[in-house]
């Protein structure tokens, strides 16, 4: 059992490892999605207003700019997200064969004034978040690939646990500077230490897109699949427009009413169906940042009269479970301290995938022998994925400060900066011997992260600085230190082939190691 599981663990981990590493790194960064966006728009400092007021200003802007659309969605701001985000969906064309109208792009509004945010154009933290499950591929291929990799991860975790016979002892075992042993220990420590977290984040990640990955149970129980989602939320999209014009009641009053009904909990989202029609509906969703369940309650009001129509039913155990799984993955419930713990656990996930990938190569390397093609390929892909991706992410943040704030199309240029740096460095690293390439690329990544606070200081200037920017820049320095430490350890380590101990190692210990490493 253990041997077959060790074998499958190695291959599952290798085949999905590079993409999983990128998913883990950008996903971990996404715990700070609103903060990254805030850092990337330093000139935007809005006056905070209440929820009801933010809803009023957003509706006023939508009534001016998209009055006849079929549906408006408004994400209200909170302490972390400073701007109101609005989406609208156009009315479907009368032709029944025409595809459903797409959601129009997001507009970010100032909560106090209700005008679009005037700040440098950027994708912000949203970019890392989207990348971590869409992989910058056309829809739906990125999500399918991410799902496949997550499935491989789940298989690797389960087979890894079965492989691992001394799961408790390895908790405390980290032998530095022992070549292959150290990589195995590092892999075990990073994996075992946070095992519940890894298993949780992988499974709940799959759950976030379960309706896309496994829609079949819905088809077995519902003749019309839309009824399933309608039974979770009070769905406004299914309401038919009457054709008579109507004017929305004061949205702020509805927000306050819903908040009162939820014992003061905030409204996080407002969905308005047929906003210019006499039969318009307003659905308010409860904020989930004070509870684990991210699939929150909702109340629907008649848009014109403001009469309370319905509320989402209390969820049963399965729906509650799914909601909590979603909440655990998103981590919105976490306050600042817990969010940092989640971030560190995410980093152990990155370390687990990275050390696992390195271990795959290290344990197949024969001292003194020329590496076979597959091994060189894995080595090179490891360098490109592990050592060069951080440089790309640093370049994304640096481009935000270095590109002129008013430049047209700068948001896309920031994204290009990340991919050109990442893949460009991966290409360049081919010109160097593998060991040198590891050290140099990690050093370069460290230097780029260390450059972020300096460039920030030079381009934004000291006047605009406050605690938030200091904390963000301090984190960049810490990341630079971690990457620099990795480069330094590698540079200090003796070259594998030059180590006599490996070649004379006793047959017995070799067999034991082979059993462990398998």
């Amino acid at each position, binding site marked *: *059992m253990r*041997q*077959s*599981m060790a*074998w*499958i663990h190695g291959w599952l981990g290798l085949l999905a490892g590079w993409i999983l590493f990128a998913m883990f790194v950008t996903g971990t960064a996404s715990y700070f999605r609103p903060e990254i966006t805030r850092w990337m728009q330093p000139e935007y400092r809005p006056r905070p207003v209440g929820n009801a007021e933010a809803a009023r200003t957003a509706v006023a802007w939508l009534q001016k700019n998209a009055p006849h659309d079929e549906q408006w969605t408004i994400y209200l701001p909170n302490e972390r997200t400073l701007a109101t985000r609005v989406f609208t969906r156009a009315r479907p064309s009368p032709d029944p064969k025409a595809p459903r109208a797409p959601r129009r792009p997001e507009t970010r509004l100032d909560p106090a004034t209700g005008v679009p945010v005037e700040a440098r154009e950027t994708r912000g933290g949203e970019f890392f978040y989207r990348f971590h499950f869409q992989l910058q591929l056309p829809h739906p291929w990125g999500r399918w690939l991410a799902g496949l990799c997550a*499935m491989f991860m*789940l*298989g690797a975790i*389960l*087979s890894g646990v079965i492989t691992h016979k001394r799961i408790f002892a390895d908790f405390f075992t980290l032998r530095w500077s022992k070549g292959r042993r150290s990589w195995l220990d590092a892999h075990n420590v990073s994996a075992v230490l946070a095992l519940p977290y890894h298993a949780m984040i992988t*499974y709940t990640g*799959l*759950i976030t897109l*379960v*309706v896309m*990955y*496994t829609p*079949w*149970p*819905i*088809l*077995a*129980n*519902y*003749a019309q699949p839309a009824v*399933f989602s309608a*039974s*979770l939320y009070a769905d406004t999209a299914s309401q038919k427009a009457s054709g008579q014009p109507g004017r929305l009641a004061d949205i702020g009053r509805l927000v306050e009413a819903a908040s009162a009904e939820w014992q003061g909990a905030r409204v996080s989202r407002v969905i308005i169906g047929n906003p210019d029609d006499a039969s318009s509906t307003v659905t308010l969703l409860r904020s989930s940042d004070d509870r684990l369940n991210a699939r929150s309650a909702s109340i629907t009001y008649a848009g014109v009269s403001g009469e309370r129509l319905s509320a989402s039913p209390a969820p*049963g*155990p*399965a*729906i509650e*479970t*799914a909601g909590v*799984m979603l909440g655990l993955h998103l981590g919105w419930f976490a306050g600042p301290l817990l969010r940092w713990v989640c971030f560190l656990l995410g980093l152990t996930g990155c370390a687990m995938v990275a050390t696992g990938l390195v271990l795959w190569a290290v344990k197949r390397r024969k001292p003194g022998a020329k590496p076979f093609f597959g091994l060189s390929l894995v080595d090179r892909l490891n360098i490109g994925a592990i050592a060069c991706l951080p440089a790309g992410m640093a370049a994304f943040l640096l481009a935000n400060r270095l590109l002129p704030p008013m430049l047209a199309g700068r948001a896309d240029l920031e994204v290009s900066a990340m991919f050109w740096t990442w893949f460009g460095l991966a290409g360049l690293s081919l010109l160097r011997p593998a060991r040198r390439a590891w050290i140099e690329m990690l050093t370069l990544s460290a230097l780029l992260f260390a450059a972020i606070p300096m460039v920030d200081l030079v381009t934004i200037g000291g006047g605009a600085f406050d605690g938030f920017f200091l904390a963000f820049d301090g984190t960049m320095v810490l990341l630079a230190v971690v990457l620099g430490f990795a480069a330094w350890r590698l540079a200090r380590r003796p070259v594998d082939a030059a180590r006599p101990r490996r070649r004379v190692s006793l047959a017995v210990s070799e067999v034991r190691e082979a059993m462990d490493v*398998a």
Partner: protein
Amino acid sequence: MASAQDAGRGWSMAGRCLTALVGGYAAAAGLATLLARLLPVARVEATAWGMILSFLFYAAFGLWAFHEPRLARVASVIWGSAIVTGGAALLLGVRP
């Protein structure tokens, strides 16, 4: 590494991978769907249980496909489960 060697190379390994990836998905989807259809709880609850458990089924089928040395057994159990559960779900039709 006995089972890895038994798994053989080339076509046999390709067949095993295909069975694990595609057959495993089909069997897990079939099992989840049948569970969702037959669980004697509310419609929405049964649907959610099926969806929540589907990935566990998939992982179990996938790992077992590489654990069991006899490919014929792997293929017959996994594709067989897919056909039986999927067929049963189709015959039962949508929950009335």
